[in-house]
């Protein structure tokens, strides 16, 4: 009961938020990034957290959605973007099925390595084909849906929010269903799972398919939102790793962990990128602007958000192996 109340309040707050902050593209932009990363990480969590299959190649499905949508819209500009998103899901699912049939034969670290390999194959293919725009990427001049003002950010805020809610809903449902129990059994011990009647490859592929389809929708939305994509934006290994780190830091295999992780890490990365943190420290008089540390903060920290991710991850693994949510679990 408590959880339902909490969810209702959160949902109401999330829906009302753009109205409260009004027309502030900067803040809305950050919120969209937070929601997107929360949804991406939650989608990854279905495969990585529940089934225990650490995919390091989720950028492939994100890119599949983004590229499919962008390529379709540049060639057929009157197409309904929702159809493009649907086609994106199909493309991502095909990649997922091919990937799954090959890499799910492998276990543990080998699965992780193979998932990177598949994602790199996708990235290098896209980089070298002509119809994908190659290294130049794809720029979309205009897009329209139902007369919505797609130059404003609010439609994308609600779009990302919707996908996040759907992803969390699927996760919550899975947790109490046969599939959810089976995925967790696979995570804990594959031989035991198999001896208890669980078809390993069927359930692994099922979770990969759900995860990949949701990820591709987010990729499509991202493409429509930014209207420019290239391989370094949507197919990079860095993206796959950020998705995983968000889940690890928030709490792998928990419903809310990836959301918590995203609300912490995305604003943090933004603060580092825009030098807010360095400036704040200097302004507060904690660090002198001319000292070595001050210069470092101003000059280099902006490029260091991945480094900070890394440090937080190491600290989390050492002291919070169950993520931030694990803290509250233990207290119970």
């Amino acid at each position, binding site marked *: 009961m408590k959880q339902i109340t909490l969810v209702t309040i959160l949902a109401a707050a999330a829906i009302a938020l753009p109205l409260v902050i009004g027309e502030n593209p900067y803040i809305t932009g950050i919120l969209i990034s937070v929601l997107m990363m929360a949804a991406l990480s939650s989608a990854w969590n279905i495969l990585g957290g529940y089934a225990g299959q650490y995919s390091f190649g989720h950028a492939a499905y994100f890119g599949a959605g983004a590229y499919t949508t962008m390529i379709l819209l540049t060639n057929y500009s009157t197409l309904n973007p929702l159809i493009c998103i649907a086609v994106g899901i199909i493309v991502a699912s095909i990649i997922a099925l091919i990937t799954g049939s090959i890499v799910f034969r492998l276990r543990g670290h080998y699965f992780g390595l193979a998932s990177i390999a598949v994602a790199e194959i996708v990235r290098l293919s896209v980089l070298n084909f002509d119809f994908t725009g190659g290294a130049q990427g794809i720029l979309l001049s205009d897009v329209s849906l139902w007369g919505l003002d797609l130059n404003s950010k609010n439609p994308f805020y609600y779009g990302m929010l919707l996908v996040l809610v759907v992803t969390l809903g699927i996760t919550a449902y899975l947790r*109490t*269903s*046969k599939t959810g*129990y*089976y995925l*967790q*059994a696979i995570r*804990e*011990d594959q*031989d*035991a*799972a*198999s*001896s*208890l*009647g*669980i*078809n*390993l490859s069927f359930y692994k592929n099922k979770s990969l398919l759900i995860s990949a389809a949701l990820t591709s929708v987010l990729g499509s939305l991202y493409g429509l939102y930014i209207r420019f994509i290239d391989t370094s934006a949507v197919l990079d290994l860095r993206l796959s790793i950020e998705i995983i780190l968000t889940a690890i830091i928030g709490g792998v295999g928990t419903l809310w962990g990836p959301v918590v992780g995203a609300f912490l890490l995305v604003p943090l990365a933004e603060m580092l990128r825009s030098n807010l943190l360095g400036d704040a420290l200097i302004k507060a008089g904690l660090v002198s602007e001319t000292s070595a540390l001050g210069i470092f903060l101003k000059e280099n920290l902006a490029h260091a958000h991945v480094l900070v991710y890394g440090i937080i991850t190491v600290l989390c693994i050492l002291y919070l192996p169950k993520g931030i949510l694990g803290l509250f679990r233990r207290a119970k």
Partner: protein
Amino acid sequence: MIQHLLRVSHVSKHFGGNVAVHDVSFAVDEKQIVGLIGPNGAGKTTLFNCITGFFPVTSGEVIFDIKKINDLRPDEVCRLGMARTWQRVKPLGSLSVLENVMVGAFSVTNKARQAEEIAIEQLKSMGLTDYASKSAGSLPIGLKKKLELARVLATHPKLLLLDEICGGLNHTETDAILDIIRTIRQRGATIVFIEHDMKAVTSICDRIVVLNSGEKLAEGTPEEITNNPDVIAAYLGGGHHA
């Protein structure tokens, strides 16, 4: 021809040049308890892995009911009604005891509520009710073995393969497990079990199959086996036999 529940016929398993199991045949009838014994490295667990689909056999056939099951996956074998436990217990560590048993129960139902009912019932009959919400990984070994048994019974097997279910247990715990096994049989299950503890084996088995160095050494009733000179030699004589 008599219909056996399980028929292992001329099964061999080679790992490269290593012969782990060579030309082993035996049959198990319904409601029998058959013991599979032999010294370390005799190929007992390998044979189990072949029967349950974890290893493909090199040659020979495994027939369950009337179906040839050599080429089936372990999960298919389980859903046909043959379930196994593991010598080294494999609890689903971070799941609760109840959830562990529910995972087993899901092979006979798709509904979580039904699976939970089956699991609660199974825990009750195993005396594990008090531990239902504990995480499976935190149980002591004796209870982990019981959990392993509860979980596999929740799949409602016709044939149960137990791999050293009493291994590592003290006398009281062993007796408790043997009592459970007798109760299971009264309910109609058939059991094959690997065991080192001769006393446990002879007290409960209808028939015993003895493996040595991957080959079948003897087969018979507990009395026949305990008086068989080859078996005594294999266990005690350290290679003086044959």
